């Protein structure tokens, strides 16, 4: 056959027809379709049997269930954290931090997977084995102690009531250092106010059974106690078709709580406590207080040398005067007070500030006084005293020793002030420190004054961070020890702020995401055992399971408790409250405080000096009575800092515990984070107009502590003269989904000390604002 044009065409056409007749082409097309859908970068989660395990999130107090999938290849893994309908307080709900907890657990980019030693010069980490790491840590502690200066060891922990916190306290007591502080919280302020006026520390608000609730500046629906439990109470007031409860919010911004409230009393920031006192005045003047409760109390009327609460109020907190000072309409204030006084089950609530700070003690005392006038203490829907948690002590309960702490304890009632400790250590006054233990809490980010904490870590020769994550604290530590996430290790948590009943939460290892991680408590136990002698004897446990078994022995069978994951007081303690005050009565004039400070001062002249030194305004007359102190930031306003900076609380952000999660970042609205991860701050349009600023301008906010750069968002619900910024953003760690989103509020917040409680406060900071670009 000859190869001519015809033959070629025949072969080509024949070939094409032949290929089409064969399945080859269809097979290839099919394969390519399958191939294009076989996306190796789209994960294929493994299927398996589903199981549920109870757990309590120690960060939020939510009773939850972990949904576990038992895969044949991948093993058991948690796929969701859901609500636990059997938990008596949270009844099945969750908040974003619970629902997205797995994002921090399962992310090897942000978890500490092995003990790490950092070279300060290069900043590079090298991996260690656990025995090596523990030897380094124990060696350092032994050396510092041997030099006769155990106080040069400082420790910062997260939750003082948890088993880990208690072990840290025992370790520091055994080492002989008094320099220990924990993440400050409003529970401590409430305990101090309760101790001063009622001789009781474990107070709670019976919100669910109340029909008239007034919240004094605390973000009830954004960041208060166990957020799910608070919402369940709120939902119970929103009946259908009629509301069964009345909620009033007193604060400066149209927040979620203010908007969902039946009445919003917009006041100047920081004046909430004064309004509580003005309401007391109105109730007294109108004769609408509970006569029986007041007659049974101490310090209402003048007694001997002491001026009573009544005459003190009538003289100093006249309704017109306070209403004008706070910038609220008098008639609205009176209406609110009359409603409160006449309601069947009314309660006034105090709590953490919008910035999550522990609040001011005199404000809390004013709110307790208002509740006492209403006569709701120990009654349904009022202020309750929780039963004590049946927990056994697992070690030392106090740091009492001969060594002088960095911060003079006479400065306030509570020595838990990480900020004051850090400032003293940075200044080296009265002495410097050599070793810093950071046990959770990520202080270098959370602060409260983050810049000070970072300086402290950089100045201290040896810094140890025990953390599940490669967080900001880990990035400045010399030794980083991997600890467990709450879903993979043993641990516990106690009653959330303001809970009407005592509750306890336990978590146990459900899965293992990081095999090398140890419970923080277990690390402390092993360090103690390496140090030997008295220190090992003070912490005589093998592991956290043993610690928790010992701690909870009064709660029944441990295995059952661990499976159930919570213990909750059966019913609220209604009935007459046993006031453990010096007079045995409710004290409007705190005899307990008077005796304590008199003891410290020695004689009456010194007492006056001591009170002045603590920074209590109003002198001796006011020091032992609920009264109002102008916020410290008010004094700074004149110094070229014309505006106030405060926080926008939200359940989509966090402060103090675990960091914000990627899903929480994802659901942040444009009014918090916008335009390629810029922080957004709110300002009243009128204030912006006066400063020649427009919506969307990029501004710099400067305080004495630091500065923030943010996009300006004009919001009519913001009080004039105040800048509102979200908290908990601007991480320098936690992976690309969280890192660099916004800026850290606690870099700009100025932290001061509350004069009476001695706790750090940072609700308000004086700032100046400047336009960067528009």
């Amino acid at each position, binding site marked *: 056959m000859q190869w001519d044009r015809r033959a070629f065409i025949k072969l080509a056409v024949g070939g094409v027809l032949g290929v089409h007749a064969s399945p080859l082409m269809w097979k290839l097309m099919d394969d390519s379709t399958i191939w294009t859908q076989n996306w190796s970068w789209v994960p294929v989660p493994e299927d398996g049997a589903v199981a549920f395990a109870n757990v309590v999130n120690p960060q939020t107090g939510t009773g939850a269930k972990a949904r576990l999938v038992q895969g044949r290849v991948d093993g058991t893994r948690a796929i969701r954290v859901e*609500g636990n309908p059997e938990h008596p307080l949270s009844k099945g709900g969750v908040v974003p931090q619970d629902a997205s907890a797995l994002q921090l657990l399962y992310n090897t980019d942000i978890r500490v997977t092995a003990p790490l030693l950092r070279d300060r010069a290069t900043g590079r980490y090298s991996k260690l084995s656990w025995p090596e790491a523990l030897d380094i840590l124990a060696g350092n502690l032994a050396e510092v102690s041997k030099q006769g200066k155990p106080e040069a060891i400082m420790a910062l922990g997260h939750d003082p009531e948890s088993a880990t916190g208690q072990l840290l306290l025992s370790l520091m007591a055994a080492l002989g250092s008094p320099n220990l502080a924990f993440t400050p919280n409003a529970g401590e302020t409430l305990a101090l106010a309760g101790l001063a006026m009622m001789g009781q520390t474990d107070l709670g608000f019976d919100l669910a059974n109340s029909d008239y609730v007034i919240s004094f500046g605390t973000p009830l629906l954004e960041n208060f106690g166990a957020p799910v439990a608070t919402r369940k109470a709120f939902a119970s007031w929103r009946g259908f078709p009629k509301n069964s409860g009345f909620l009033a919010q007193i604060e400066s911004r149209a927040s979620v709580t203010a908007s969902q409230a039946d009445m919003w009393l917009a006041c100047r920031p920081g004046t909430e406590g004064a309004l509580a006192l003005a309401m007391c005045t109105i109730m007294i003047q109108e004769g609408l207080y509970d006569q029986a409760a007041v007659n049974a109390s101490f310090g209402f009327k003048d007694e001997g040398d002491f001026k009573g609460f009544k005459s003190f109020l009538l003289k100093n907190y006249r309704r017109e005067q306070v209403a004008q000072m706070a910038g609220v309409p008098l008639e609205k204030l009176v209406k609110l007070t009359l409603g409160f006084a006449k309601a069947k089950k009314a309660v006034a609530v105090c709590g953490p500030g919008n910035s999550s700070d522990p609040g001011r003690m005199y404000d809390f005392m004013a709110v307790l006084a208002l509740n006492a006038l209403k006569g709701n203490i120990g009654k349904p829907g009022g202020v309750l005293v929780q039963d004590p948690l049946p927990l056994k002590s697992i070690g030392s309960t106090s740091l009492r020793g001969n060594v002088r702490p960095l911060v003079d304890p006479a400065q306030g009632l509570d020595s838990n002030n990480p900020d004051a400790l850090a400032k003293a250590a940075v200044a080296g006054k009265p002495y410097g420190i050599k070793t810093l233990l950071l046990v959770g809490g990520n202080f270098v980010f959370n602060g409260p004054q983050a810049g000070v904490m970072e300086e402290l870590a950089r100045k201290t020769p040896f810094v140890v961070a025990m953390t599940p994550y490669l967080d900001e604290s880990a990035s400045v530590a010399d030794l980083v020890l991997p600890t467990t996430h709450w879903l993979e290790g043993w641990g516990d948590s106690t009653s959330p702020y303001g809970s009407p009943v005592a509750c306890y939460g336990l978590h146990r290892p459900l899965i293992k995401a990081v095999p090398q991680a140890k419970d923080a408590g277990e690390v402390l136990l092993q360090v103690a055992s390496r140090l030997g002698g008295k220190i090992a004897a003070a912490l005589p446990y093998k592991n956290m399971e043993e610690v928790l078994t010992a701690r909870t022995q009064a709660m029944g069978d441990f295995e059952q408790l661990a499976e159930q994951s919570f213990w909750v007081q059966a019913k609220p303690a209604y009935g007459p409250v046993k006031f453990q005050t010096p007079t045995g009565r409710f004290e409007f004039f705190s005899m307990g405080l008077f005796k304590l400070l008199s003891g410290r001062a020695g004689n009456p002249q010194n007492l006056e000096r001591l009170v002045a030194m603590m920074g209590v305004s109003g002198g001796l007359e006011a020091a032992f009575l609920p009264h109002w102190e102008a916020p410290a930031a008010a004094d700074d306003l004149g110094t070229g800092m014309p505006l106030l900076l405060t926080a926008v609380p939200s359940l989509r952000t966090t402060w103090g515990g675990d960091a914000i999660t990627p899903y929480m970042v994802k659901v942040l609205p444009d009014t918090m984070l916008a335009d390629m991860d810029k922080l957004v701050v709110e300002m009243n349009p009128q204030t912006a107009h006066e400063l020649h600023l427009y919506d969307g301008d990029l501004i710099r906010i400067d305080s004495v502590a630091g500065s923030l750069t943010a996009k300006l968002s004009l919001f009519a619900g913001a009080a004039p003269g105040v800048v509102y910024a979200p908290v908990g953003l601007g991480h320098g760690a936690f992976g690309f989904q969280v890192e660099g989103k916004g800026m850290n509020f606690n870099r700009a917040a100025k932290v001061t000390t509350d004069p009476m409680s001695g706790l750090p406060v940072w609700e308000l900071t004086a700032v100046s604002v400047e336009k960067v670009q528009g």
Partner: protein
Amino acid sequence: MVIDLDKCTGCGACSVACMSENNIGVLHNETDKIRSITWMRVYQIDNGKAFPDTEVAFIPRPCMHCQGGKSGTPGQAFFQEGPMDEAAHPPCVSVCPATATDYDEDTGIVSQIPTRCIGCRYCVAACPYHARYFNWYDVPWPKGSPRALSPFVSPRMRGVVEKCTFCFQRYQAARNKAMVSGGEVGEMDYQTACTEACPSGAITFGQLQNPEHKVHKLISSDYTFRLLERLHTNPKVYYMSKREWVRKMADNYVTRHNKFAQAAAQSGH
């Protein structure tokens, strides 16, 4: 579904619970809300008044699972109707060239089958509620994070559209269970992830037509409304609020007296 806006505190739990239930990823930049995928998105509105009379409220917005408009009596236009006639389609279903989305007559759920989707985004444009999202990017799953993914929902690939399915996988599981036990799917057997998660119990889920279910009672209240009702999409998500300004913001404020008249006017009667 009925969402009580007076109970909603805008905490975002519904949104986050939805993401963890449905394997939704997180991109590098989530401030670009047009490309950020949130099946359940919580919008914030305010009453526009100056300080101190300002008030804010939140509107959680899942897919509305529209049944589509239908000419009929005003009463029907407001509540549930019988089977669709030819003129009635959910806006997204009628434009899909690939039959990747469909309306299920039995459940009233508008489905979405990502593997069938060709990525033309007609449905995204057609949806008046912005409830549909296009996967512009592959999800950059951080190392180790796929361990938290649910095996009951397939993670989607780049180039397809996705949206809220009323947690259809939960319906399937409940239906299977009911089949095995020989019973029916009860009200509490099938609840969406957002309903379960909501800490204030603002979301109620059930069959709108079943008089035994809570939602059936709730939608007959004077405080109930739907979003963009005048578009005749006939959504299956109802909202309720005792606050007048919130109801007015829904763009179809209807008082008790003109409720039926207005509905009739909208249907061209």
